[in-house]
């Protein structure tokens, strides 16, 4: 017998398992998207599902994002529970009309008479040179829309549990994955389970600062916190997990203990969700802040393609650690810190065996 306490699988496999279990437990669930049944199976997240559940429940899609989204909404209000899959979050932009005008509002406009149980899975496509149109982080875009739930799990455990929760939920849920998380292994129990769609998680407790991170930035945040702990700087790291709603009670409770708020996002700074976290803290817990809050986010221009340009684009653990130490007014020997957080892989790959380009 397998000991579930020891089962480490990649996030891609955890997601695939959640989809398989959702298809298994509810015959109304269908999975549709460009490339879903193809040999690469959307980075492995849909691999084998069509073989297992058949072509009447797991489909490829024409290249018609807006139309297919409307078609899935129509199916959702007619007794199905569609899960749409996009290889890139950028492709869902073509479907913004259906997502924003219909999926998010259908229930509301008709005074709660009809639900839209729809999940839209998208991926932030960081990689080798995907460039300006294939690696955007658009969580704030979706998070702005009342009527949508928007989640961005980091761990494989949460990815599986939140995806199952999203599929069981009666509302449209945008499920945002990050390409750099797919290959990371985590303890993931095999039986189906859910993780709430509206709760942040404290992944490391600390007393000197609250570092709220989204998605892949949690990985960098934990590295930064670990390095800073060597210098007596004690960072609390919160994985926001959900973008809409934001779990403000958990964040505010932490800020009340630490007095310092840093938010690390995978997206641009202006108009981003990091600013929303800070605004919400300022509104209700201004008195708890001992220093100005900080946003660590992308510079306000699209990601370029060249690796020589990308190397200055994404804030990493070293960047985070330096900024947080400086912000707290703490001296940290910089060369030593840099050595501690030295990354042996190039700036455009998540792990050594990543062979690009996507």
């Amino acid at each position, binding site marked *: 017998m397998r000991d579930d306490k020891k089962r480490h699988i990649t996030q891609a496999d955890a997601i695939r398992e959640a989809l398989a279990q959702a298809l298994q437990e509810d015959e109304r669930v269908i999975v549709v998207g460009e490339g879903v049944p*193809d040999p690469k199976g959307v980075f492995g997240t849909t691999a084998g599902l069509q073989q297992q559940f058949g072509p009447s429940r797991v489909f490829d899609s024409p290249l*018609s994002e807006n139309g297919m989204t409307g078609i899935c909404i129509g199916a959702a209000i007619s007794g199905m529970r569609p899960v749409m899959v996009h290889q890139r979050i950028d492709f869902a932009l073509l479907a913004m009309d259906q997502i924003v005008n219909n999926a998010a509002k259908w229930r509301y406009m008709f005074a709660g008479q009809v639900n839209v149980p729809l999940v839209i899975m998208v991926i932030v496509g960081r990689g080798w040179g995907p*460039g300006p149109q294939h690696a955007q982080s658009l969580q704030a875009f979706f998070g702005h829309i009342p009527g949508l739930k928007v989640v961005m799990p980091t761990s494989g455990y949460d990815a599986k549990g939140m995806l199952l929760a999203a599929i069981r939920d009666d509302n449209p849920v945008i499920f945002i994955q990050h390409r750099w998380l797919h290959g990371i292994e985590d303890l993931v129990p095999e039986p189906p389970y859910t993780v709430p769609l509206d709760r942040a998680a404290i992944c490391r407790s600390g007393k000197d600062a609250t570092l709220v991170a989204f998605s892949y930035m949690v990985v960098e945040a934990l590295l930064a916190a670990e390095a800073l702990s060597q210098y007596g700087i004690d960072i609390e790291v919160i994985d926001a997990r959900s973008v809409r709603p934001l779990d403000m009670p958990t964040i505010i409770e932490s800020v009340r203990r630490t007095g310092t708020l840093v938010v690390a996002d995978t997206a641009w700074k202006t108009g981003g969700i990091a600013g929303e976290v800070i605004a919400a803290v300022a509104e209700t817990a201004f008195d708890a802040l001992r220093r100005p809050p900080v946003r660590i986010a992308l510079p306000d*221009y699209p990601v370029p393609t060249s690796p020589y*340009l990308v190397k200055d684009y994404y804030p990493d653990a070293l960047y985070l650690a330096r900024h947080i130490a400086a912000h707290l007014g703490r001296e940290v020997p910089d060369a030593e810190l840099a050595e501690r957080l030295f990354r042996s892989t190039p700036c455009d790959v998540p792990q050594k065996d990543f062979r*690009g380009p996507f």
Partner: protein
Amino acid sequence: MNFEKAFGSMLRVRRVEEAIADRYAEQQMRCPVHLSIGQEAVAVGVCAALRKEDGVFSNHRAHAHYLAKGGDLKAMLAEIYGRENGCCRGVGGSMHMVDLAAGFLGAVPIVGATVPLAVGAAWAAKLRGENRVIAVFFGDGTFEEGVVHESINFAALHRLPILFVCENNLYACYSRIDDRQPDRPIHGVAAAQGCRTFTADGNDVQAVFDVSREAVAGLRSGQGPAFIECATYRWREHCGPNLDDNLGYRPQGELARWESVCPVERAAAFLRAMPDGAALIESAEKQIAAEIADAFAFALEGPLPNSADLPGYLYA
């Protein structure tokens, strides 16, 4: 059409793509590449019917279109290598290319994204009274995007000088056309939308040129949009340098059948039957090899771009 020139242009695209494929494993071209190997005749045949001042828009699979329209090879390779001397200074890479001087007005990888832009460019040409034709290349899969049909409708309504070129290579990534579209011809839809439509064997450069010339002549005399569907085939994987027939998404023997109607080899065979054909091919090969070696050197010696310049590209 100058057949020797068209052959040389196809051979050049082929050898460039092969060189990219050969060197891709060195991991110095750190961006996705979608190679045009097998589809050279469409780009070359269409562009041979265009003038320099005519415009071309393209997509993720842009190398052949860019080169056939006269785009600068050195700047293309430097772009793929992420260098400052690339055609977009490293911002774009293989999937985002431009060479305004050559009338290559832009290629981006969001499927269907450039089709309305091409219509807009044709509209502007008409509004400004310019004798200019615009062509846009896109795949069979792209024909499924709503924006393509909105664009064709507008172009037909305003009788715009635009040439829609659909490269039907039967696949979108790993998905075969029968899994995405009903059994009816793509060009039939375009005809119903008000285009003058043409079909061509997309692996026969002369055939592609012949219909393109007729289509473009109509555009110049104000007959409204034209649509060419070219049957062709992608030899390598959708994205990347390798063969991928081992994955089993294409029926056995299909690739071999298309390889046997290689557009470059067919043109070469035609030339070889001419008195000095063999010598001509040999000298083309030599000249192209030298040019490619030069262009790779240019790219690899290119200065590195500076990220401090990026914000300056954002707003006028």
